[in-house]
């Protein structure tokens, strides 16, 4: 069965510090991977996605993620966060042989001044 695990439910960080949000997936087949962001009182929006090719993918707002097949991970990183990055971040995966996008439980990133 396919599953997505986000190890941290909350990540507090000071402004301009680097941040990493962790995501691991479990699947018996190859997957496509996504990060979505949900700002307060807004719908989810796509941050970035990995389909194939380069394992380092860049998204909006300076975020990037690296696909690591051997570790089945897709961690999200940003070298310097802003207050406006405060939001809930969701990792998601879909297997090649299904049409069901599975989400993790989310990580709340709280950026402090």
């Amino acid at each position, binding site marked *: 069965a396919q599953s997505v695990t*986000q190890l941290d*439910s909350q990540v507090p960080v000071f402004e301009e510090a680097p941040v990493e949000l962790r995501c691991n997936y479990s699947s018996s087949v190859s997957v*496509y991977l996504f990060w*979505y962001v949900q700002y307060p*009182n*807004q*719908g*989810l*929006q*796509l941050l970035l*996605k990995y*389909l194939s090719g380069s394992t380092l993918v860049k998204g909006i707002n300076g975020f990037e993620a690296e696909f690591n097949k051997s570790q089945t991970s897709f961690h999200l990183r940003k070298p310097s966060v802003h207050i406006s990055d405060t939001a809930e971040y*969701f990792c*998601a995966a*879909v297997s*090649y042989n299904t*049409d*069901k*996008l*599975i*989400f*993790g*439980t*989310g990580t709340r990133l709280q950026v402090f001044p």
Partner: protein
Amino acid sequence: GAGVSQSPSNKVTEKGKDVELRCDPISGHTALYWYRQSLGQGLEFLIYFQGNSAPDKSGLPSDRFSAERTGGSVSTLTIQRTQQEDSAVYLCASSLVWQNTGELFFGEGSRLTVL
């Protein structure tokens, strides 16, 4: 409209009553999805439509839940005889293409509270 529209944005109901939640996807998007977001539970897949047909209904929690889509556009999620554990935010999303590689566009959700 420009984005996915959901109504009502908030619904408070009494246990045992039926509720209907509506989703109006982005014009031209053939795929439509319903998810449920509960505190600490992340997003739970409910059902997916390709056009008017639902290839995968496996996520519906019980037979009290049903969904339909007409005209390849608007979808309605119906919950019969609501229970307190149905309280959650119900999210609708649409996509232009097969969701494996396509981007999902989400509405702001319908918050359901069952008293």
